[in-house]
């Protein structure tokens, strides 16, 4: 009886486990098959032998290395800038003493509640007027701005918790405000930096809507954008498509598996604010 009950509780969890994971397993498995195996001989099962040729074809024929490179450049530069700017901003708000810091903090928080769609049109025109269309800047600048409110919030929370004695002793040792920031505060908030870095890198890597609107040049496309155009062009080559999708997903899944706790923490912190 006890056994049966335990099974009943476990059942939904493992059923949803299959629903959640099987589509991905299916994708990887068809990336290793040829069309004959996918459509006729072996649609569900694991590949009979691993056909790596889909991967070599995907890598050499499609523009994958280029998209990969673009995604990497855009995501890492924006993430780096977000961290530097948000750290500086949060330091001035959380640790320094001046009159309007609370209003400035609220002003920054507004951004967390703005749906991206509302800035889409003026942003496209702004990017065009600044002659940034089809450059890395067209994505990096907006990604930085969009990432700021959330990152500032996390850093602010962390910095508020630092005891004042740390700065006082640094002050006694004759450090000026800039050294205080770099040598005392930044090292203390390293865990928050890790959370923000992973979270922002993931969201920048996967961002689609702005990239779709701001980038049309084939050479500047990021992975999510590049993937879109395989659909029309290679719709009959499922194996190749599967390989492209697997290549595009693998880095994110690996990063997540290594840092799952940080990613989930970041999500939960975000929810605490918006609720």
């Amino acid at each position, binding site marked *: 009886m006890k056994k049966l009950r335990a099974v009943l*509780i476990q059942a*939904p*969890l*493992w059923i*949803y*486990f299959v629903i*959640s*994971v099987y*589509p991905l397993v*299916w*994708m990887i498995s068809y990336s290793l098959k040829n069309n004959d195996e*996918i*459509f006729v001989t072996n649609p*569900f099962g694991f590949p009979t032998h691993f056909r790596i040729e889909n991967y070599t074809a995907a890598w050499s024929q499609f523009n994958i290395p280029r998209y990969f490179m673009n995604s990497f450049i855009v995501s890492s530069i924006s993430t780096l800038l977000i961290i530097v700017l948000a750290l*500086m*901003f949060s330091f*001035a*708000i959380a640790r*320094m*003493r001046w009159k309007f810091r609370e209003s*400035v903090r609220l*002003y920054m928080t507004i*951004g967390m509640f*703005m*749906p991206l*769609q*509302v800035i*889409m*049109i*003026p942003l*496209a*025109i*702004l990017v065009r007027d600044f002659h940034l269309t089809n450059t890395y800047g067209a994505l990096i*600048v907006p990604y930085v*701005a969009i990432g*700021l409110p959330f990152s500032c919030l996390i850093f602010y929370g962390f910095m508020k918790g630092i005891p004042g004695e740390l*700065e*006082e002793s640094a002050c006694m040792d004759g450090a000026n*405000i800039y050294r205080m*920031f770099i040598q005392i505060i930044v090292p203390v908030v390293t865990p928050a930096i890790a959370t923000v870095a992973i979270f922002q890198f993931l969201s920048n890597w*996967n961002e*689609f*809507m702005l990239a779709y*609107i701001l980038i049309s040049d084939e050479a500047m496309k990021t*992975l*999510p*954008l590049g*993937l879109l155009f*395989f*659909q029309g062009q290679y719709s009959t080559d*499922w194996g190749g498509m599967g390989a492209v999708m697997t290549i*595009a997903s693998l880095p*994110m*899944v690996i990063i997540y598996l290594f840092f*799952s706790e940080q990613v*989930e923490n970041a*999500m939960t912190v975000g*929810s605490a604010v*918006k*609720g």
Partner: protein
Amino acid sequence: MNRYLSNKKAIALFLLPALLIYSVIIIYPVLQTVYRSFFNWDGLSTATWNGISNYRDLLEDPLLITSLRNGLLFALVLAVFQIGLGTVLALACADPRIKGRKLLKTSYFIPVVLSVTVVCQLWIAMYDPANGLINRLFNLLHIPYQQNWLTSPTVSIIAIAFVNAWQFMGYQFSLLYAGVKSIPEQYMEAATIDGCSKWMAHRKVTIPLMKETYKFCLIVAITSGIGAFVQMLIMTSGGPGTSNYTLTYMIYRYAFMESNYGYACAVSVVLVSLSLLATVIINKTFDRNEA
């Protein structure tokens, strides 16, 4: 010390870069969108003042009804699937008898970190009428229901909403799981000692105490339903016909395909207002229950 911490030059230096980029890229465009919604504007030539006629035209635009209906339908699927099923999974997963919790939690979350494009392409393949997994599975299980999932005007919006619900299930699940976990063990113990069954105790104790979590989950489900776009764009281009249009799809079409920027701005204002309105209503409703 104080002299250091109120150094005006340092404050400005720390503050300005972030403030500048944020103001130019987020705040200024928001104001622009509202302002431009009162103009007839193609994005290039000078705009002409239009008063509220963009909004008047919008009320008569048949796409508005389609978009609102689809947004609500989308939100409904998200809410039922993610919050309903997510609650069951979160409660089950929090049971101390469960083994492999880490594996379960991680696997539920993996779809969240994938690119929306990958997930949509994957489901285009899964929904393929002849070779897709879904129809084949139905065949295998002798379920006599074969469907052109993405080309049927009635079924496709639900099929697409399901893809979104599936991908972000892990996110809502994590929040709900954290919510369940945040409730002190003693509450449950007390309830079971008083003779409640486990599920009864959850219904009477755990779930009511997770109000804050539910509030946020619902806000996410409703606002992402109203603002949905990418899935429709990738999977069916808003079709069949215009049957899968959403508010964001309207903005995209009017602004970037027809260069009718003023009108598209009016749609943006409606979208934001609805999102904020939904957030306020959900907050109010949940807070009133408290009293």
